[in-house]
């Protein structure tokens, strides 16, 4: 498992996608021709009810390890320059950023593939859980079978 240039951060604070991309560029070096960045946001509505807030729980320690393992798999599959994964925890409001996965590579094909691969695996393997607050109270978000099948494609 090679991890040439990986940073993983689990944090309550928001992050700057611009700073992360600058960092990816610096880490990827002059061979970098492509950056693909995924940012996930808290939606204002999910399966019908309006969501007023979201609480993100995780398994400290295991979270970081599982994301490093996922990124390590990506580094083994594609020639990548650098990868950054940021995932927020705690209380988040609609419109706020939840997660960022940024990949720098020489060419776009591998940057797209690795970014989507990491997101698909993160969604089904990394120990995070979302609890939504809606008009009808709080509820734990159910896992989606489409996420499982997305991860099984790879």
């Amino acid at each position, binding site marked *: 498992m090679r991890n040439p240039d990986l940073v993983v951060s689990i944090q309550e604070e928001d992050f700057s996608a611009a700073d992360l991309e600058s960092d990816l560029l610096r880490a990827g070096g002059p061979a970098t021709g492509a950056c693909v960045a995924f940012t996930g946001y808290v939606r204002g509505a999910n399966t019908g009810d309006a969501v007023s807030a979201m609480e993100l729980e*995780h*398994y400290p320690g295991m979270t970081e390890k*599982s994301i490093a393992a996922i990124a390590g798999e990506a580094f083994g599959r594609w020639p990548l320059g650098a990868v950054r994964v940021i995932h927020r925890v705690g209380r988040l409001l609609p419109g706020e950023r*939840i997660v960022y996965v940024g990949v720098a590579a020489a060419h776009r094909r591998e940057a797209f593939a690795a970014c989507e691969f990491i997101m698909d695996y993160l969604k089904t393997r990394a*120990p*995070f*859980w979302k609890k939504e607050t809606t008009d009808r109270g709080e509820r734990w978000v*159910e896992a989606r079978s489409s996420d499982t099948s997305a991860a099984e494609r790879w």
Partner: protein
Amino acid sequence: MMVTVRFFASYREKLNTRQLQVPLPRPGCRVSDLLEQLVASGGELWADVLARDNTVVAVNQVVCDLQRVIGEGDEVAFYPPVTGG
């Protein structure tokens, strides 16, 4: 011979338990033995919450199945399917 047992998210809430120190059922036992012991002492609620097809088990922060052998000092976690990202 103790192990640490951790619960997360809806499991933590339903069981009203975040973490336990429990004695190993027996040397060389498996996660399934630990689960049986937890359900036996916890009762119906614990059976309802933990004995599900989609319960995820991790030992020392690596996902595994119920056949995984556990020992002194291991950290065993039970949790529902993840929903991050």
